[in-house]
């Protein structure tokens, strides 16, 4: 498989003190959608901006499309489409003017009209950027990257703060780009986004990769692919230790009165759970089971939830 982006031993230290990235190795293949997943402050943005050539790493090597930023910056800029986190484009320009401006920087850009159509922005083409909704602005930000006719699309938290419909719209746009052999690198702190969109992903915490693989592989690595969540009221409510002894239970977490058991075979665990509840003379007030998700992977790896601030 051909390699689109590769980095080895990436480190970034701010002001000689804060270590934002602490030794990161990544290989991203042509044509795949790769996700950097992690909580706020994990070092995702620093990592993606180093790969985009906007930040100098303190140490480590970066190769994009077989070139380095030191020797081929101009060439690379022509090939990459970049959407930063929270860029506020000029509010007094229209959508079309904004895309016209960005396309004028590239030697061989896409046609503005084609990009407008692809991102369903034709109706807003002559509206001022200041009048757009949040979802439309975010689509325009991605449009300014796509108008470059790029080989690699970099998206830093493209759907943060968007409503569900706008998020799905953006996912479709990213998949469209991928279908035309485009490579995508995105950061997100949404589990569902990473699970649905990414071919492979790396989970980042405290500037390091703590797990990498396809979403399915990562979940597979969990001890216990199913999660049983329940809450009880009554006498036995605090007795967490009892649940760990139930058949098939790999781990127990208590979270604000809600117990989550990671189990291999729910059909063995649940009857035993019900019996235990009865034995403790407690009342079951909540019971669900579900497939383990990336969130569970993250919790198991770090002991924290992904969205904790």
């Amino acid at each position, binding site marked *: 498989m*051909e*390699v*689109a982006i590769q980095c080895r031993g990436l480190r970034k230290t701010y002001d000689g003190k804060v270590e934002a990235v602490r030794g990161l190795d990544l290989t991203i293949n*042509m044509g795949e959608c790769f996700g950097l997943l992690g909580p706020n402050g994990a070092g995702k943005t620093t990592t993606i901006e180093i790969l*985009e*050539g*906007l930040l100098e790493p303190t140490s480590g090597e970066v190769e994009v*499309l*077989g070139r380095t930023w030191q020797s081929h910056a*101009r060439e690379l*800029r*022509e*090939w*990459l489409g*970049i959407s*930063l986190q*929270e*860029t*506020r*484009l*000029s509010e*007094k*320009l229209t959508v079309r*003017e904004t895309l*016209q*401006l*960005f*396309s*004028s*920087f*590239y*030697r*061989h*850009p*896409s*046609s503005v009209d*084609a*990009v407008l159509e692809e991102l369903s922005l034709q109706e807003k083409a002559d509206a*001022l950027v200041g009048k757009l909704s949040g979802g439309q602005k975010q689509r325009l930000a991605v449009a*300014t990257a*796509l108008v*470059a*006719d*790029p*080989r690699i699309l970099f998206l830093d938290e493209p759907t943060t703060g968007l409503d569900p419909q706008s998020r799905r719209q953006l996912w479709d746009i990213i998949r469209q*780009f991928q279908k*035309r*052999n*485009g490579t995508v690198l995105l950061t997100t702190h949404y589990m569902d986004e990473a699970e649905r969109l990414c071919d492979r992903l790396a989970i980042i915490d405290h500037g390091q990769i703590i797990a990498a693989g396809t979403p399915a592989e990562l979940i597979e690595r969990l001890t216990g692919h199913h999660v049983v969540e329940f809450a009880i009221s009554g006498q036995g409510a605090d007795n967490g230790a009892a649940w760990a002894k139930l058949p098939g239970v790999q781990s127990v977490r208590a979270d604000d009165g809600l117990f989550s058991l990671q189990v291999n075979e729910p059909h063995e665990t649940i009857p035993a759970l019900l019996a235990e509840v009865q034995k403790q003379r407690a009342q079951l007030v909540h019971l669900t089971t579900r497939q383990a998700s990336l969130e569970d992977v993250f919790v198991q790896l770090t002991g924290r939830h992904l969205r904790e601030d």
Partner: protein
Amino acid sequence: MATIEQPPAMSGPDDAIRTNGRWSGYVNLLHMRMLELWREPEVIFWVFVFPLLLALGLGIAFRGKPPDVTPIAVVEGPKAQEVVNLLQRSPQHAGIQPNVMSASAALDGFRLGKYALVVTMDDSGVQFRYDPARPESVLARAQVDDALETAAGRKNPINTETKASSEPGARYIDFLIPGLLGMNLMNSGMWGIGFALVEMRQRKLLKRFVATPMRRSDFLLALVSSRLVLMIVEVALLLVFGMLVFHVRVEGALLSILLIGALGAVSFGGIGLLTASRAQKIESVSGLINVVMMPMWIFSGVFFSYERFPKIFLPAIRALPLTALNDALRAIILQGASLDSQLGRIAVLAVWGGVSFVLALRWFRWS
């Protein structure tokens, strides 16, 4: 690597390949910058309308006052009307306002300072009552005496001619217009470049731009070019306004004025760029811009001549860029000076602008 020779991901097989030329980025940056400015009503007001309002307000406040009219009392009598008639026929009639009244009323008015002079005419001639301690009274006596004699047919042995110095070229508004022009070029250079840059940096737009193949020099060039376009409009508006409303006479060559204006705009653009080279927030750059401009508002002779400051300060004041710009503009507009007579001032502006640009480019942060 083989991947690099693949067709770009976006274009389908039927798309003709679009190609942008070397200057397409610059042209579009300039075009969009002008569009943005045009759509910003505040910019139009502060850059174009505000200086005109300032010129109008100050021009009216300090316009040449009509010459003082001296009220005098003429004592009733058979010849009183003759005095009034003579005064009205005299060349000084506009400056003297005769009031006919009784002798006692005239004296009362004179004592109270209402009249500067009491004139009585009878068969023996004209008598003046005046107060040698009051300058306006002395003046009125001489004036009325002169008026009566001239109107009565006195021939002056020497022909004299007088000219009131309130004609275009020497009035306050003539001093003011070039000063306002200089100040406006400074304001719009500092705000139009300094403030605009920090705002774009704060919005992460600068960072977004450098994530494209945009040439950084094109970006700065476009910003400076937009200032030059505005400069032409600013200069033209203020000069035409001064000419139409206050009959300001432009003695110098228009090309010289525009060249000095362009140098001023670019020089203050450089200072604005330097001021904005590292600031992250518009609040901090606003403070910086005001700190830089404040001394020049006071010292550079915008509203009054800096010659009034103690002599020891004058060399420092003349080294300020706005002083050089104002002096050069005044010399060219009011005295019709040539460009080469202004080389010293041109050098001051060029050094300020050039040094600022070099330092700014060294320190400039795109993110």
